[in-house]
C-alpha cells in the first residue's frame, strides 16, 4: 500500500545540504509510489524549493519567518507541525544531523509516535519497510520496524543514494504562513568554526589526522592530499585536544559521523569512539607507525610506516594519475 511521506530539507548558508536529497530518496523508497512532500523551513528558503523537486519531491511546502533564521526546537517544531497538520502524512524522514537529532524526538513525542534514528539502509516498503541502524558504537547493527502508525525515521547522511537530478521535473512550491511565537531559546551568538570548502559530513573523500601528525603544520600534507582528491580534512579527538586543529574537524561519537567513499586515517590509533564515527566508510586506509594499532583491524588497505614519508609520495602519485 502506498504511503504519503513528508521530508524535512536542511539549509545551511543558503544552500540545501545533500542529506535533503537523501531524505527524498529514502521517502520514495518507503512510499511505494505514494506522494513525497518536502518541507523547507527558514528565514528565506522559497527559492530552494525547485531543487527539491528536481531531486524527486512531488511538492514542496516552505515556511518562512524572521524567527526561523536560526534553528530552535520551538520555532522549527511549530513550523513543521503546522505543515504536518495540513498534510497528514503516513511517514516522515529527517536527516540524522544536528538539527534532525534535536528535532525528530520532539516531533515524535508530540505525535505519540515511534522513531527510528540514524538509519543507514532501508529494506522493503510501506508497512513492510525495515530499517537498518548501527548500534553499540557501530560494532553491530539492528534491523527495526515500526509496529504500527506513523513511519518516522532519521537517516545518517551519505548512506542513502539521492535520486538523479532531473531539471525537467516540475511541481508545486507552496508557501505556508505560520505564526512562530513563544520561543523559549534565544540564540545569542553563533561561532562558525567549520572550515570553508567541502562539508565534512558530506565529503566523498576524507583525509583524517590524529596525534601522529605531531602539530598544526603536520596537517599540511593531509590538506594537500584532500584538496587533490576533492575531499575534506578530518581529525581525531587526540589531534583536536592537542590543539593541532579545530574541534570542528573532529570525527567520531562526539564529533561528526561520516560515511565517505574513501577514508584515509593518518596517525590515528583507532579508538572505538573514533571508529564509531567512520566505520561505515566504503574504503578505509590506515597509515600508522604501529603495526598493532587498532585502526588496521577495520582498514581495507594499510601501510605500516611514517605518515610524513608516505603522504608526500601519495600526493605525487595522485598528481600523476590526474595528469593522465
Amino acid at each position, binding site marked *: 500500500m502506498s504511503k504519503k511521506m513528508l521530508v524535512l530539507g536542511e539549509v545551511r548558508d543558503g544552500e540545501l545540504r545533500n542529506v535533503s536529497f537523501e531524505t527524498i530518496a529514502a521517502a520514495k523508497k518507503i512510499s511505494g509510489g505514494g506522494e513525497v512532500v518536502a518541507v523547507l523551513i527558514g528565514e528565506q528558503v522559497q527559492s530552494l524549493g525547485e531543487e527539491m523537486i528536481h531531486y524527486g519531491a512531488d511538492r514542496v511546502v516552505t515556511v518562512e519567518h524572521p524567527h526561523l533564521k536560526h534553528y530552535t*526546537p*520551538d520555532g522549527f517544531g511549530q513550523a513543521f507541525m503546522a505543515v504536518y497538520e495540513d498534510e497528514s502524512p503516513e511517514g516522515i524522514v529527517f536527516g540524522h544531523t544536528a538539527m534532525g*537529532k*534535536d528535532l*525528530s*524526538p*520532539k516531533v*515524535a*513525542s*508530540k505525535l505519540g509516535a*515511534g*522513531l527510528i*534514528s*540514524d538509519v543507514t539502509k532501508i529494506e522493503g516498503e510501506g508497512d513492510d519497510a*525495515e530499517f537498518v*541502524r548501527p*548500534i*553499540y*558504537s557501530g*560494532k*553491530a*547493527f*539492528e*534491523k*527495526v520496524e515500526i*509496529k*504500527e502508525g506513523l513511519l518516522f525515521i532519521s537517516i545518517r547522511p551519505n548512506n542513502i543514494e539521492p535520486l538523479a537530478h532531473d531539471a525537467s521535473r516540475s511541481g508545486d512550491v507552496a508557501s505556508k504562513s505560520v505564526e512562530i511565537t513563544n520561543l*523559549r*531559546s*534565544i540564540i*545569542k*551568538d*553563533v*561561532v*562558525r*568554526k*567549520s572550515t570553508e570548502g567541502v562539508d565534512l559530513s558530506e565529503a566523498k*573523500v576524507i583525509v583524517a589526522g590524529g596525534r601522529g601528525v605531531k602539530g598544526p603544520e603536520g596537517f599540511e600534507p593531509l590538506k594537500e592530499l584532500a584538496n587533490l582528491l576533492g575531499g575534506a580534512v578530518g581529525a581525531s579527538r587526540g589531534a583536536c585536544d592537542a590543539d593541532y586543529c*579545530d*574541534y570542528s*574537524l573532529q570525527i567520531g*561519537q*562526539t564529533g561528526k559521523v561520516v560515511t565517505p*567513499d*574513501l577514508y584515509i586515517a593518518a596517525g590515528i590509533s583507532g579508538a*572505538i569512539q573514533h571508529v564509531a564515527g567512520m566505520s561505515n566508510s566504503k*574504503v*578505509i*586506509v590506515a597509515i600508522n607507525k604501529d603495526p598493532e594499532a587498532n585502526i588496521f583491524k577495520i582498514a*581495507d*588497505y*594499510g*601501510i605500516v*610506516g611514517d605518515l610524513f614519508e*608516505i603522504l608526500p*609520495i*601519495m600526493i605525487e*602519485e*595522485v598528481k600523476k*594519475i590526474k595528469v593522465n
Partner: protein
Amino acid sequence: MNIYALVKRTFDTEEKISISNGAIAEDGAEFIINPYDEYAVEEAIQLRDEHGGEVTVLSIGNEDSEKQLRTALAMGADKAVLINIEDDIDDIDEYTSAKVIADYLKDKKADLILAGNVAIDGGSGQVGPRVAELLGINYVTTITKLTVDGTNVTVVRDVEGDSETIETSLPLLVTAQQGLNEPRYPSLPGIMKAKKKPLEEVEFDDLDLEEDDVEAKTETKEVFLPPAKSAGRVLEGEPADQAAELVKLLHSEAKVI
C-alpha cells in the same frame, strides 16, 4: 536547585561484541555508566555545590543498574531512583523509556534535568528531548557549557563543530556533550558514603501508567554484526613503493580516486 540526572547503564563498547540467540551477548561483559551521562552527573554535582539544592540520579533498569547508580552517588549525587519495570513490560523502546521517565518526573518539580546526548549502545539520542517534550519544558542538546543565574540559563551548544550561545530559563532539560566538564572519579570516602545514601526502587505499579500507554512503537527484528571484512591488505616493501602501490590500488581496484 532541584536537579535530576538521567543515567543509563550501558555495555562498554570498548569490549568485544558477539551475538548469541539473536541478541548482543552480555555474559561476562563490562557495564558502565554511559560516558555522556557521567558528564551530566558531574555537571549536576557542580551546580548543586554552587547553588545549593539536591541531585537525584535516575535510571530505568534492573537490579544490575544499582551498581551504576551507586557510582553516581559516590561521585556526589544525593539520592538515586531505580525504575524497574522489567517484570511488567516486555519490550522497551525510546518511546517507552521516555514515557516512564516523564511520568515519574511529572510531579517532582525538577528545575533542571540533565541527560547524556546519546547512549553509546542504543545510540538513538531520543530520550532527552522526548522527556522534555512530555514534561512540556524546553531543552537544549549537546551542550558544552552551562551557567545558571537565578532562573536564567546560558548554554553553549555544540552544533557539528560550530558553537551556539543560547539564552533560556528554568525549568530546562539539557543533554551533555563531551567537553562539558571532566567527570571526577569516586573517592574512597565517597564510595563509603554512597552505601548509606537513599536508593529508591520504583515499580511499574507505582507509576500513573497503564501498560498500553507505554507499549513500544518499534520492534527490533534482528541484531547482527557487520559482514566480516576480508582481512585488510597491509602493503609491503619500501615506503615509496608502498605509497605508490596504494594509490594504484585506490585508483584501479577500489576505484575511489
